[in-house]
């Protein structure tokens, strides 16, 4: 999507939207501050991060073993496990299930992987009604939009807009009070759960040694999606694995604390296969779709394998100075923010999203925030390097850096260049700053002052001082 416009064009649109910018500032500040408070209270945060990183690294380094163990355990319990190399294969699996079940309606809980393969669009083409049940996703779906934040999808919507969307969906006598709006959503979505043929969820973690799926939500929607319809389909990226149930405790702390600054998630469902003989509820049939879709290309690559450690908490979004200004849609990809800027070009593998690694200040705040210590800022630099190596870079940029190399490699040339620049700035520098929007400086001076060169370089000052000392 959005392959024709650039992140720069989309950012311009976002920067003109005052409500969006206010909402993004408010939300990211709130989540970041709460995270800081909860991790301070919890204590030993760095030790927890180290542990999280060690577990994720070990798992990904032995991914074939743990995936096989997970799949074997699940199959033993009667679940169907599907391994899919790409979006096409995953969608074909869903088509088969929909046809076998003659399904008319599907309820879904939040899953980034299903966004990645455009599952909803596919289901609609099959004539199946798809209903998102996460409140934020439901709002975004009614608006015909895509999520703008991994954790809070409808960050960009006002309550007036939400009321209008709910009225169009059959809501009567609604106010803009949160209670009213939520009560409508509860009633409406409850009908959907009870009449859906299939429930589709994502998967926060898959536990290899028990064959379990762990789902985290605050609303409790995934739990109803997984349990009320007769068929449950789980979508998971192939890297979602943890070796043991004991490891889940680590991530039951890292994920909610990093994502929203909550000490714990409200609901954690641990699902181990379809309903058993004797169970009076729960799905009769369970399918787990395990998706590669560009992930295995990162394995064995020392620069990028760690991107598969990600637990999709969104903490990197909340600290990113670029995300803060432009919001999620400007990235134009399913995954926004720093993780999106790294992951989108990697998963795509082609030309798309090559501009995203440039939408970063490389400040490293994302790495500091990451609960599993993924060096996102290093990866962004390496993606830029790869991009330049592949395309040869821009002619002007290459010429500029060639000139830079020549000038800065020799102190006489350097001094000559400084003297020339000092003479040239003469007319523009006032009070120690340059404000004129001239030449390549305009990109900076358009909004800020550029510091003018001093009357004297350090070298000149040093030489003068030495001469002075000798004289005295």
């Amino acid at each position, binding site marked *: 999507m959005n392959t024709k416009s650039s992140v720069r064009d989309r950012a311009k649109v976002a920067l003109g939207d005052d409500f969006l910018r206010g909402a993004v500032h408010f939300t990211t500040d709130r989540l970041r501050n709460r995270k800081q408070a909860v991790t301070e209270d919890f204590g030993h945060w760095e030790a927890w991060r180290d542990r999280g990183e060690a577990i994720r690294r070990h798992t990904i380094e032995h991914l074939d073993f743990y995936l096989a163990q997970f799949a074997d355990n699940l199959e033993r319990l009667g679940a169907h496990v599907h391994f899919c190399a790409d979006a096409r294969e995953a969608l074909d699996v869903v088509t088969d299930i929909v046809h076998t079940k003659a399904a008319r309606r599907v309820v879904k809980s939040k899953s980034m992987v299903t966004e990645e393969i455009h599952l909803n669009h596919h289901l609609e083409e099959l004539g199946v009604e798809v209903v998102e049940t996460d409140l934020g996703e439901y709002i975004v779906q009614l608006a015909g939009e895509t999520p703008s934040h991994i954790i809070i999808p409808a960050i960009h919507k006002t309550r007036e807009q939400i009321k209008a969307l709910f009225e169009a969906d059959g809501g009567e006598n609604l106010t803009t009070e949160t209670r009213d709006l939520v009560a409508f959503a509860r009633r409406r979505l409850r009908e959907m759960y009870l009449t859906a043929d299939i429930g589709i969820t994502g998967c926060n973690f898959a536990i290899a040694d028990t064959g379990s799926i762990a789902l985290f939500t605050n609303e409790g929607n995934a739990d109803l999606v997984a349990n009320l319809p007769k068929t449950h389909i789980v979508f998971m990226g192939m890297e979602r694995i943890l070796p043991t149930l004991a490891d889940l*405790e680590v991530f039951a702390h890292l994920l909610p604390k990093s994502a929203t600054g909550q000490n714990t998630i409200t609901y954690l469902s641990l699902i181990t296969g379809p309903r058993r003989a004797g169970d*009076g509820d729960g799905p009769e049939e369970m399918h787990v779709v395990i998706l590669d879709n560009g992930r295995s290309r990162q394995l064995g690559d020392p620069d990028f394998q760690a991107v598969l450690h990600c637990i999709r908490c969104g903490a990197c979004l909340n600290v990113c100075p670029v995300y803060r200004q432009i919001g999620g849609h400007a990235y134009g990809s399913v995954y926004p923010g720093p993780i999106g800027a790294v992951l989108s070009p990697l998963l795509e593998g082609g030309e798309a999203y090559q501009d995203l690694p440039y939408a970063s200040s490389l400040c490293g705040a994302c790495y500091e925030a990451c609960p599993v210590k993924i060096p996102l800022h290093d990866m962004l630099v390496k993606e830029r390097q790869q991009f330049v190596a592949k395309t040869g870079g821009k002619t002007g940029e290459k010429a500029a850096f060639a000139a830079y190399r020549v000038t800065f490699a020799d102190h006489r040339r350097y001094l000559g260049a400084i003297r020339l620049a000092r003479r040239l700035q003469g007319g523009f520098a006032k009070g120690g700053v340059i404000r004129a929007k001239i030449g390549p400086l305009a990109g900076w001076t358009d909004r800020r002052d550029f510091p003018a060169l001093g009357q004297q370089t350090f070298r000149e000052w040093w030489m003068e001082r030495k001469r002075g000392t000798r004289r005295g």
Partner: protein
Amino acid sequence: MDKTAFLANIASRLGRPPGSAPGRRDAIGVPDFWAHRRTSHEERVATFCARFQALAGEIVRCDSEAALLAALDEALKALNPPSVGAWGKHAPWPVNVEKVLEKWGARRFGEQPVLDIDVGITGASFGVADTGTIVLACGDAAGRTVHQVPLVHLVVMRESQVVQSLGDAMARLREVAPIGHLPAYVHFISGPSRSSDIENDQTIGVHGPARVICFLLQDSADGP
């Protein structure tokens, strides 16, 4: 794609013989300082209550079974719900509350439909002090929907069921898991259903219960 080829591709990218077992792992589960904490029964119960209440869960502490039955009955009087549902008779109830369930004509899971109940009454397997969580291992007469669909969830539990950490609860689940595997559904619940999706305005009762009230029976750490 076929499973063998899918896994072989991963192994080859990682430069591993396909399916070979990992060597010994140093970091399993939580760090030692967390796993090796020692707490008393009283501390665990106090932390559990404080954490559960901080998440807008409600706790009613009862010093005898009779007091618990009375408290449960009082709560139902105050709620005065059109319909009440509960786990089946043979579910693992930590406290026998049949008298109250009979009085209120509770629909029993497995015998009557529960999808439209207003109040759901269940037991629980564990309480977790660290996170203020109640753990429900579902299956057979302990239906999943009994506590998921109603607006109010009443849960009865004993103090001796409170463990310190999520890891303790998970380890206990594995110990009792029938024929080597976990129940098909285990639910970890920390307070009422909540959302901040409308302009960051915190609200409860979106999909799950808006109230979760835990009736906690005092007993010793050794259990009943």
